[in-house]
Structures are given as C-alpha cells and as structure tokens.
C-alpha cells in the first residue's frame, strides 16, 4: 500500500504561475486540513474578510482546488503547518483550473497501467487523513477507479523521475489535473 501525501502543485498548463487564493475554514468545521488536501466551496463566505468558506472535498464533489498553505497564526508556532480540526484558519488554495498536480496512486487492487496513462482517462481520489507530523494530506489517486467516467482527476502522465514508472509495484506518482474545477464549472452548487 502506497503512502499518500495529497496533491502537490507542480506546474500549470501553458506555463506561468498557478493562481492561488485565500479562503476560510471556520472553527465549526471538524475536519482537519493538511497541505495537499482537495477542497470544495460550501456556498457560504467569511464576511469579516470577504473570502469564501471551503471544506475538504469528497470524491465526486465539484473540486475548487488544492491546499498549498495556511495564513500564519502567531498562536500556532508549532502546529501552524496544518489546520487542526475545529480551528478557524485562512487557507491558501491553488484554484487554478489549469494547475498540474503530482499525486501518488494507492496501487490498491493493482497499479494504473501504462495503457491507462497513454489514453485520455480519469481517476477518482481516495481521501486520506493527513499527518500532524509531516503536515501533508493522505489523499491519493484511487487506482481501481480508472475510467472515463471518473469525476475527480484527468491523468496527464507519470512524474518523469528515474525511479518512477507506470504500473510499477507500489504505484506510480501521477501527473493530473482536475477534471471539472469549480472555477470552470457550470454547476453553481458546490
């Protein structure tokens, strides 16, 4: 079983800097958040600082983007690298529809094949709990969900590191983009 570290922003279709915005997670949200977690909007906003409120997304949700950091909080010098459950935090999210992410596949039930990587196909995520020690999300790509109908990520390729390949034991590190990112979605609901 592979170890997930969430999604990591590695680039952008067309090059340039990926768009990052600040969002808010209120203390009423009891789900801890980590760098690499996939998030969605909640149809509400933080009126104090005029930013939308987000929460961790589940597979099939209209994905806003991926957490890339948190606004520093002087009261959290040692735990500010993640957002503890039920803690109000401002969150930096890559909400760029063209962003490219690296994500580990879970290789549960077999690894994604080279043929899959070579075709236009999607994969869903499997949401995992992050680590308070590393500060990274536990989310991975769900290898057994590869299908054209999958809603979360489109497979762009594999990370071209010398120790990484499609169909390798333990699963590959994939390059993906969000299939239907919230900023491009026609559905107004979250």
């Amino acid at each position, binding site marked *: 079983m*592979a*170890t997930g*570290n969430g999604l*990591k*922003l*590695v*680039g*952008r279709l067309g*090059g340039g800097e990926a768009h990052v915005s600040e969002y808010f997670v209120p203390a009423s949200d009891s789900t801890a958040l980590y*760098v690499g977690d996939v998030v969605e909007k909640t149809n509400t906003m933080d009126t104090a600082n005029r930013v939308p409120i987000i929460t961790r997304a589940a597979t099939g949700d209209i994905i806003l983007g991926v957490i890339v*950091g948190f606004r520093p909080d002087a009261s959290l*010098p*040692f735990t500010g*690298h993640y957002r503890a459950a039920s803690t109000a935090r401002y969150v930096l999210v890559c909400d760029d529809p063209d962003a*490219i992410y*690296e994500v580990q596949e879970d290789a549960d039930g077999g690894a994604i094949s080279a043929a899959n990587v070579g075709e236009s196909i999607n994969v869903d995520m499997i949401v995992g709990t992050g*680590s*308070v*020690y*590393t*500060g*990274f999300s536990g989310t991975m790509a769900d290898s057994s969900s590869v299908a054209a109908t999958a809603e979360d990520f489109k497979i762009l390729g594999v*990370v*071209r*590191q*010398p*120790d990484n390949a499609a169909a390798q034991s333990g699963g590959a590190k994939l*390059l993906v983009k969000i299939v239907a990112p919230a900023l491009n979605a026609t559905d107004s609901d979250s």
Partner: protein
Amino acid sequence: MANPINRSSYASDLLPIVRKWESDQLKKHDPLTPKICTEESSDSAYEVYGVSSGMGAMQEKGEGENIQYDSNRQMYTPRFTHTAYALGAKITMEALQDAKAMKHAKRIGIQLARAEYETRDILTANLINDAFTSGVTQDGGDGSILIVTTHPSQVGNQSNAIASNADLSEASLETMFIQIRKAKDERGLRANINPVKLVIPVDLLPEAERILGSDKRVNVADNDLNYIKDSGMFPGGIVSSPYFTDTDQFVILTDVPDGLMALNRYSSGVETDNVFDSKNACFSKIIRTSRGWVNWRAVYGSPGV
C-alpha cells in the same frame, strides 16, 4: 528539608582519630554525554529544531517542456525545554569551626560535583535506556519513541529498529549495517548514512570486543575475515557505560548530525552563603539542561531477545 550537617554528623572528626574520609576523592570522571550526544549551549527557556520535508529527485524534461517545480516545508519541530537540577548542603557554624575536615568545606564541593556528573550521565543514558519504552517520545517530535518501526515520513513509515529482535552478534550487527546503509530521508531519497559507534551496556562489552576485535569471524569454524573489523564498520569504537540498564539492548550511532542532543542552559559553580540567624553555611550547585533527539536516524538498535 534535610538537617544541616552538625558536629554529630562527623563526631569522629572532632578528635584526631580519622586519617581520611572516604568519598572525598573525586575519581577522574569520564562523562558519557559527549560520547553519544551532540552538546550545544542554549540561552533560552527552550530551543526548537525544525525538520524540513526536503525535495525529491530531479525529473526528466523534454525539449520545450516546462520544468516541474518541487517545494519543501516545515514538518515537525522537536523542542527542548530545560529542566533545573540542584542540590545543596548546610553546615552548622559549630561544625565548620570545630571539625577540621569541614573547615575547608572541600568535601561539600567535591560531592556536589559528583552529584552533577551523576545527574548528567543518567539523563544522557536514559535516552538509550528508554529508546524502546512505550510512551517516551520527543516533545514536538514525530510522535514516536526513539527506536521503532513506525517513524512517519512522506514515503510511509520508516524504521530504525532491527527487523527481528536479536541479541548482539556478528549477524545482528551486519543486519543493522545493511539497514543503516539503505536508510532514506523524509522524502525517500537515500540518506547515505554510516554507522559510527556501538553503544552497549557493560554486560555486553566482552562479547562486543570479541566481535569487533577478532581478525577472523567469531564463533565459526571458517577462516573468513571479520568483515566488521576489516571494513572499519565502527570508526568511533565501542561506547560502554554502567548507566545503561538493559543488559542485552544494543544500539548503533550513525553519522547523522543533530541526533541525540544535550543542551546546556546553565551550570553554576559551587555557590555559598550563610544563614544570618543560625550562621549555618549553605552550599549549592544548579544546572539547567535538557536531553532529546532531533533526527532519529542517528540511532538504530535492537532491544535484545
């Protein structure tokens, strides 16, 4: 509250019948701390170290392709909050005046110095003694005990414990040597670390000397060379101490920096004062120090069988 040392405490000293008091002589101390810890001074109430997530390997780039960017960030932050340790003694004015040995109060200073050395060595040895003890974790660390199979990292749990508990032997040392050489960092890159010292209780010292010192392999009929000696596997040699309490536990220190840490905030000399009302003389010594670890890859070990 201990009683002040009075004339009856050393009644025999009032008459010239005792040639020398035992325990007055401070045997040359061979401190354990610098042998297994990185010692640093501190000027704060606590010190914080940071562990970075690191970066991955480079990626192949096609012509005209954009570079794939990596990143790194803070992970856990081991913290060292100093604890004060102190001890003192009092001598009545009468004892100080009448007892000849007490006139110089030299004995008090020597014994307080021994108390300090003992305290420091126990604190240091407890890093090893508690290496496998459930619940003894580093404040702000990775949530694990020092030697365990489940240190969290970005590439899954990593281990600095021998895969199958074993006693000290040529085979177990070679197993751990291989494990150390294959160790990876937080990101999964090869850590490229090497063993430096073998740390053992005095109970294992004879066997360790045989294993490390024999020209040929120990306890076998073959005439093979002793790889452990021939390769210089432990350039720092053996560290043996009576402060290590587990008689079959052994650990290997590696060349990873900032492994076991000993931070020293303050150390007084022997301070003296007098109580005005009783005229008792007071002697004390205070240290403020802390122990712990930053990078667990500095220590690999086996609890024995």
